[in-house]
Every structure is written in C-alpha cells, then in structure tokens.
C-alpha cells in the first residue's frame, strides 16, 4: 500500500488540496469571523510588528468589501521605534481605522508604574493593557501570538479566557474541539483570541511575501548605532543604553521582531528584500525569541509567568 500512497500524493495532490498558506489563511479568517459574530466589542492589538500587521491584513480580507468591524489597540511603551509609529499612523489613516493607545509613559508619569532598573518596559505593558481592556469594555482581544514562539505559548488556546484581572490560568482553559470555539465569558472577563496560533515565523514571512504586505523598514537591513548587551545588539538611544562599559558601533543589522527598544535585539544581516529575509530565516539556527528577546532569557518559565499576569 505504501507504493499506492506515494503515487496518489505525488506533487501537490488533487486540485482540491489547499497549500499550507491558504489553509492557514482560511483558518485565521474563520477565527476573525467567529469573533465578529459572537462578541460585542472586539479589538486588535496592533504594535506595528509583523505579526500584528499580518493580523490586520487578514481582518481586512475577512470582511471585504465592508470595513473591519474592530478597532485597534496599541500599548505604547514610550520606547518605540519611530519608523514603527510612523507606519502605525499611516496604516490607521489609510484604512480609516480607529486606534486606541495605552501609554506606559503615562503610567510612569502618574507614578502608577515604576521604571525598572534594567530599563526594560516590556513587562510594564501588562497594567496599561489590562486597564484599557476594562475601561473600554473590550470583550475579545486579538493578539498575534504564535504557538511556535515559546513553549508556554504551545499550550495556548485559540480562544483564551482571561479573568477580570486579565490573568491566564492554564488549568481553566477550555478544550478546543473541531472548529467549535467557545467564547462565553462573564461580565468583566474577556477572551484573548490568537488567529495566528498555528503559523510559524517562516509562514508569516512567506505570507507577507505572497500578499506583498508592506512592513516598517526596520525589518530590513540598515546601518544603525548599536551596542552589545546579553549577547544581542541593542539600539543606542535615550531609553537607557548604552551603560558604562558598553561601546557603541555602527553595524549593518535588521530586526526579526519589533518590541520595546530596550529589550529587542537586532541581528547582523544584509537582507534588504523579503526574499533575502526569508532565505536568512530559513537558514537561521536560532528562534526569533532566542535571537532577539532579552526578557525571555530570564528563566525557563519567563513567558509562562508573564502570561499568567495578563501579558499578551
């Protein structure tokens, strides 16, 4: 029988077989439409990073030719790459979207949050995120998290129930069977929804290339003043780097992820086109978080702990 099996599946199979990108796209669109059908006030977390850009692109396709029935929420750490903020504002204007901004700087200025000694603002996003979800009464919050990113994420549901403090309790998560998502929640609770759950980093880049989606320039190789910290190239800037003993140099780099400037590392790269980026990622022997996120290196359970507290 093995011979027969091989003969049947030669090439891409029958005309009724979807490519893996089409299958992932269709699944994500199904998720967006389920949320549109079942929730009152959904919002898309939009950072201007590639995953949130792909989410928005999928949402636009899911409801075309009508408008996207969701608004956007950006948790602004105050340490953003200017190129990303510019991209965000241009995208919002182009598609006539509504943008909410939750500002970490405001919370620091009001004394609600304290700057950390390491200057990293990534963990500080949880409180502004949670309070905005509460005050705006958002009941579904789309995040760009992918299960391939990190091992605590590998056990995340597509519909992830959060209590009124946004906390994630892995033991309270509902089994997800077939494509029957259960979005029931009590008042004050909300559901985090991850339409890209089953995508890998490479899928995201291949999809960006296929759909010709524009990205902020920092994803492509450019010269930048950087310094070395914790094995990564961090951008020199007002946010708290470099410290004494850290030397700044000009290097040809690009970013694989976009987050808070204080903990998002760049990688050496000469990839200036999407095709070159995809080739580089396919050949990389490091995960994107391993290569570029200082905050995930803290402990075996760093992501699990942040998720429990209400992080993305």
């Amino acid at each position: 029988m093995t011979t027969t099996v091989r003969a049947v599946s030669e090439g891409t199979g029958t005309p009724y077989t979807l490519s893996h990108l089409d299958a992932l796209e269709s699944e994500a669109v199904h998720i967006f439409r389920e949320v549109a059908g079942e929730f009152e006030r959904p919002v898309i977390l939009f950072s201007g990073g590639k995953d949130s850009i792909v989410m928005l692109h999928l949402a636009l396709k899911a409801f075309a030719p009508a408008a996207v029935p969701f608004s956007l929420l950006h948790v602004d750490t105050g340490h953003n790459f200017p190129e990303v903020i510019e991209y965000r504002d241009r995208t919002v204007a182009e598609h006539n979207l509504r943008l909410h901004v939750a500002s970490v700087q405001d919370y620091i200025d009001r004394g609600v949050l304290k700057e950390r000694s390491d200057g990293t603002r990534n963990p500080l996003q949880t409180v502004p995120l949670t309070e905005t979800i509460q005050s705006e009464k958002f009941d579904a919050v789309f995040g760009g998290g992918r299960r391939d990113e990190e091992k605590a994420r590998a056990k995340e549901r597509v519909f992830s129930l959060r209590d009124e403090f946004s906390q994630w309790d892995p033991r309270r998560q509902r089994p997800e069977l077939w494509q029957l998502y259960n979005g029931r929640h009590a008042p004050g609770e909300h559901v985090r929804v991850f339409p890209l759950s089953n995508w890998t980093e490479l899928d995201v880049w291949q999809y960006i290339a296929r759909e010709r989606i524009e990205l902020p320039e920092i994803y492509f190789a450019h010269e930048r003043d950087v310094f070395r910290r914790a094995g990564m190239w961090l951008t020199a800037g007002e946010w708290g780097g470099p410290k004494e003993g850290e030397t700044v140099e000009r290097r040809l780099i690009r970013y694989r992820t976009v987050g808070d400037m204080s903990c998002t590392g760049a990688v050496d790269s000469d990839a200036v086109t999407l095709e070159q980026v995809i080739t580089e990622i396919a050949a990389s022997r490091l995960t994107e978080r391993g290569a570029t996120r200082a905050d995930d290196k803290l402990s075996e359970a760093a992501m699990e702990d942040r998720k429990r507290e209400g992080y993305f």
Partner: protein
Amino acid sequence: MTTTAELSATTLLRFATAGSVDDGKSTLVGRLLHDSKSVLTDQLEAVERASASRGQEGPDLALLTDGLRAEREQGITIDVAYRYFATAKRRFILADTPGHVQYTRNMVTGASTAELTVILVDARNGVVEQTRRHAAIAALLRVPHVVLAVNKMDLVAYEEKVFAGIAEEFTAYATELGVPEVTAIPISALAGDNVVEPSAHMDWYGGPTVLEHLETVPVSHDLAHCHARLPVQYVIRPQTAEHPDYRGYAGQIAAGTFRVGDPVTVLPSGRATKVAGIDVLGRPVDVAYTPQSVTLLLEDDIDISRGDLIVPSKDAPATTQDIEATVCHVADQPLTVGHRVLLKHGTRTVKAIVKDIPSRLTLDDLSLHPHPGQLVANDIGRVKVRTAEPLPVDSYADSRRTGSFILIDPSDGTTLTAGMVGESFASPEPVKDDSEDDGWDF
C-alpha cells in the same frame, strides 16, 4: 530548513500522538523535531542546560515538549501542546497529547482536528489496555489514518516476530472498531531507527519510516462524495456608495464543494435559491471547496443570518430537535440527565436539555454500562439531547465538522461535553486483498 525546495512545502498535515506513560512518546516527538532539524540551537541549548541541572547525561529530548512549570516539576504533560515542523514535502501541525488515563479529553481534543494519529506501544509490552483506549478514541473520532509505532525495538533485539505479533493483534482490534487504515512501523525512538532515517537493524522491514509516511499520506478527501455544507458565520453588508447593495454570506466551507449556479437551500428556514457568485477572500471563483473561507452571493434576497446552514438543495440534511450522539465529557463538573445546557453546532448556539444518558462506554473492553445517571470528566457515553430549535445535523461518520457539537454550561460558560452525532463506531471494512503490499500495512 535550508533549501529552496523546503521553502515551497505546500500541503499541511495535522496529526496527533498518543501513548502510555513510558512508551517513549516524548522521545519520538523530540526525535521527529530534532532529526527534521526543526529544533534550533537556542532551544537545544536550553534542553541541554535543563538536562544537566537534573543530573541527566546528554540532552533529554522529552524536555523539548514539556511546556509549563507544573509539568516540569511533576515530570508529566497536563495538556495538549501543539508543535510545528516542516520538511521538503510538507508542513506539520502535531497535537502532542499526554497518555495518562485521566486525560482522555486531551486525546479527544487532539484527535478532533487530526487527519492521522500515531499510537505508540512498547515492543516489550505489546498491546495493553491503554493501547486499546487510544485505538478506540481514534475510531470514535473517525481519524482517517492510524499509525501504530512499535517502539523500543532495540530492547527486543529488533525481532521481526515480536513486531509482527503486535501489529497483527492491534490491526485486528482497530479494524473491528472500523478504523479504515492502519500502518504499523517498527521503531526505536531513542536510537532513531525508522523515525526519520531507515533502520540499519531491521532489514526485514520494507515499509516507510514514520516521517516518510507522514510526508506521503494523502491529506485530501474524495470531495465528490462529501455533502457540501456552509455554516454562515457573518453577513457582509458594506452599505457604501461603492457597494450599496452588496450582501454576502461569509463562512468556512465545512465539507464538500460549492459551484456558481448550484441550487442551494438555507436551513433551518428551508428557503431555496441559487449561488450567484463565490468570493474567496477578494478573488471571484467558479468553484470553492473545504476548508476555504469564502463569501457566497445568492440570487435571491432572502433572510439569512449567522447560524444558518447553506446546503445543496438536492442534498439537504433533515433538521431535528432530538439528537442522539456519542460524547466525551471534558469538564470537571458532571453531566446529568435533565441538565440544561447550550449546544453549539456549526455557527449556531441553541438551548438544549440532556434527556437521557442511555449508556457509558468503557474504552478498555468496549463494554456498555446502561443508565449511568451521569458522566464525569473523561467518560465516553451515549446521550440524547432535545434542542429548543431544529438543527440540521449530519451524522459524524459522514461529516466530522457538521456532525459534531459541544455542550456549554450556560451559567459559567464551561465547555462540558464534545458530541458526535450518530453511531459510535463504523462497521468494519470488508477485508481487502493486500497481496500487492510491499510494506507492513495490515
């Protein structure tokens, strides 16, 4: 993943694994990820550090798949974890499910979307109670392809007769349950025999390695024989100057194909019309098929909303308020006769009452216990449910997606039960002539 050929991997296979504790499932999964070069340097270093801190010699590949702190502390897996890897031929989504008795619900969850299940047995122990449970779950969930991986062949001196005995016993059992296809493969996950690379120790085995089989098993179905079904998720009405009259019915095709011009009926109302156009995410097409997400345009302006089901007029399911199904109870609180619940089927959620629980099924020996009164977590049983509104349900054997439902507790939203409409098990396939086989397929 380095060559351009690997970048053009085109199809997607969703599969699940099941095995008893100590059958070496985590090692098999770790081996698949590792030998297909899907484990990257930083992940491997983390595993090496963790292994060393536990005093283990060499990296413990099982640690690659332990996600949560509680699991690492207890050395167990408590939940379905999803893994991703790719080869030149295919992209894989693996639902890695734990094998403990109390976690039937995780196996059911993983199998619900899987097109293939890998069931592991220890060559020294052969088919045990757990193996029979795993086979029964694969059969209940109608997973199209089952792989029996007979592991730890190195510990039985790579003996052909050990493997053949286990393969025959398992295949006979699975066939009785109606499993349409079983492929048995002798492996050693620890040593790497027949997982990715063919074994140098088992010349007598002429079949594929586990990975070769995963790469070549057919993922498409014979759509011509499937009932076409489109659960309406959302009505798209732009009401703009550019599109003043556009009205599209958005959904993911749950089964079969739709063509422009097809006469269709909308259920439960029963109104009939024709497909005027099909839009696949901005691209007009003449034909669309499962699992594409589409927007259907219809010839007549009839009242359709979320929760309706669009079907071919010549092939419409009957609607009913009385559903009899096999269920797996997945919640900690029990399901009882008289329980008022919500039932979600396709895109429709309706009120329902559990009218009867005629029997509970013991997976180990498939014995039936009549009128158990209630079902508790991880129980499999038969239930009769009365719904507040008529639903167009298919038999699960015909359509996994429109023959399935979940029951939800209306008070706290808990997912209580997963249901499959119709008979529990398929009748066994007639015995096929396998004289032309070159491998170990039974």
